[in-house]
């Protein structure tokens, strides 16, 4: 296979050289962090006053972690490392669930972010000849603007469609022969339903690739998207604290997500003990920015769970690969003492042809016991009209879930289209248990 690449010098850099580059950039990041009130105080607590106090990459482990709460505490300017006149953009969280957080960018920050996204796009085999329809939100959400500028830099024809408005998305796809889209997996599944509803034949679309991200999804969901649209779908990982998209992406081989280690130092830790974990062990992703001027972040706890893959990717890139995101350390559900991730439930449901793409996980309490209900939609096409078959289906799903998550949920069958469809990040879990 011909391996398409955007920045060969950096993407194929020898590990040793890459790690030297990381150390140089880490010291630079520390110098800039020491300009911020937040880190000056935090680093003084561990006795670090000069970037040269860091001698090798292992010294990073002596630095404190940064959490989402720290970002809230430092809001709005406690983490700003440059004068405001040098900042050219900010992305801030809505703050609907508390104090907002903010990341500022200098012109150079935006340029480097754009370069990382361009790398990701080219790694999937997309080229300047592609027509790219960006189906994620523009504005404060980083997904839209991040991919937008990266795609322009690659030279793709960009359609800044934004999220939602499915009728218009389909119209744009037909009119401009869109070949690549960027969307959440749940939106692409919704788009496929709309395609079928409007009776648009797949052959009328020129689509060949999709970039999917912004919500954890299973391998089954990716395959489902690939089969339904007859395209290749590539997993995208990013978070606004680390710019947004462009942090890690799958290449043409789809064997995990290459994380750009010239831009970030990656660690995986046990979320409870905060001890570093080794290759193959699932834990929380922790990242340090290496080339950000306006808002440098040290050992940021992403709350996303994954593990590092061993071995080498056939593409030859030296940057290590993350397994797909398993969930968030804070969306893990504890059901009668058993840890359950919504992604495990999704894995099972996606293998059942009789149920549709929407589902809902509901938790409540009867007495002292947690009750887990999984609501699924019956699909119109495979329905035979036989009530006994529905009972058997419900039993089969319940057993498959029990085998996967070790808890047997009650399975509820619902009519097609009756569960909420998410056009953004899917809200699949409703927890009605009283808080203590």
């Amino acid at each position, binding site marked *: 296979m011909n391996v398409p690449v955007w920045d060969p010098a950096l993407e194929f850099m020898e590990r040793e050289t890459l790690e030297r580059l990381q150390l140089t950039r880490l010291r630079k990041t520390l110098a800039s962090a020491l300009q911020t009130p937040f880190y000056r105080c935090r680093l003084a607590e561990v006795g670090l006053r000069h970037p040269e106090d860091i001698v090798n990459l292992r010294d990073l482990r002596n630095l404190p972690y940064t959490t989402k709460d720290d970002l809230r505490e430092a809001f709005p300017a406690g983490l700003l490392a440059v004068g405001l006149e040098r900042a050219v953009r900010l992305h801030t969280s809505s703050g609907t669930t508390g104090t907002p957080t903010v990341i500022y960018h200098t012109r150079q920050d935006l340029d480097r972010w754009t370069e990382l996204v361009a790398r990701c796009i080219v790694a999937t085999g997309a080229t300047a000849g592609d027509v790219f329809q960006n189906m994620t939100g523009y504005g404060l959400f980083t997904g839209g603007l991040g991919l937008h500028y990266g795609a322009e830099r690659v030279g793709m024809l960009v359609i800044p469609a934004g999220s939602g408005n499915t009728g218009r998305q389909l119209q744009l796809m037909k009119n401009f022969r869109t070949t690549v889209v960027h969307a959440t997996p749940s939106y692409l599944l919704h788009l496929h339903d709309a395609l079928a509803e409007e009776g648009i034949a797949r052959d009328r679309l020129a689509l060949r690739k999709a970039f999917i991200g912004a919500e954890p999804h299973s391998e089954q969901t990716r395959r489902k998207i690939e089969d339904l649209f007859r395209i290749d779908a590539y997993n995208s990982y990013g978070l606004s604290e680390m710019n947004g998209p462009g942090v890690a992406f799958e290449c043409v081989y789809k064997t995990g997500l290459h994380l750009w280690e010239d831009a970030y130092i990656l660690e995986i830790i046990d979320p409870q003990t905060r001890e570093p974990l080794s290759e193959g062990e699932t834990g929380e992703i922790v990242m340090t920015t290496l080339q950000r001027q306006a808002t440098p972040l040290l050992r940021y706890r992403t709350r996303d769970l994954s593990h590092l893959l061993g071995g080498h990717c056939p593409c030859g890139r030296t940057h290590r690969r993350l397994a797909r995101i398993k969930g968030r350390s804070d969306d893990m559900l504890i059901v009668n003492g058993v840890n359950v991730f919504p992604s495990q439930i999704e894995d099972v449901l996606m293998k059942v042809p009789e149920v549709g793409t929407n589902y809902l996980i509901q938790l409540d309490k009867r007495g002292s016991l947690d009750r887990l209900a999984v609501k699924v939609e019956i699909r*119109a096409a495979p329905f035979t009209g036989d009530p006994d078959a529905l009972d058997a289906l419900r039993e089969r799903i319940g057993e498959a879930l029990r085998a996967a998550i070790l808890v047997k949920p009650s399975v509820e069958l619902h*009519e097609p*289209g009756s569960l909420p469809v998410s056009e953004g990040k899917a809200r699949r879990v409703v927890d009605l248990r009283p808080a203590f």
Partner: protein
Amino acid sequence: MAEQVSVFIENKPGRLNAVTGVLAEARIDIRAMTIADHRDYGVVKLLVSDPGAAQKALVEHGFAAALKPVLAVAIEDRSGGLHELLEILAEHQLNVRDACGFVGEPGRRAVWCMEVADPAEAARLVAARGLPVLGDAELYRS
């Protein structure tokens, strides 16, 4: 052979009339109807003037709806009428899974519809004994 429309609905207020609403809008007449209740959901079984059109309209409105062959037999509306029919099925060890009946002309003619394991074979046996097996069109005229 006559066909019955089966529709999956959740067992909660407003769902059954959502089905009848779709049929009313599509100008489809309901001849008979039963519900197989399974606690939180049910399967509504309908005998209608145009089963194909009814199923299509329901699916277009987002329902899971399917067509299924049923054995519909015209019997005399008098004591013993149904018994004669069921005797034939029993003789041949044919099990009836679900059934409903309605009167066409009181005192003269009734119709018995049922789900059986092998509807084609059952139809042949019943017809051989002189009882009229109805198709969709005749079923509706009964």
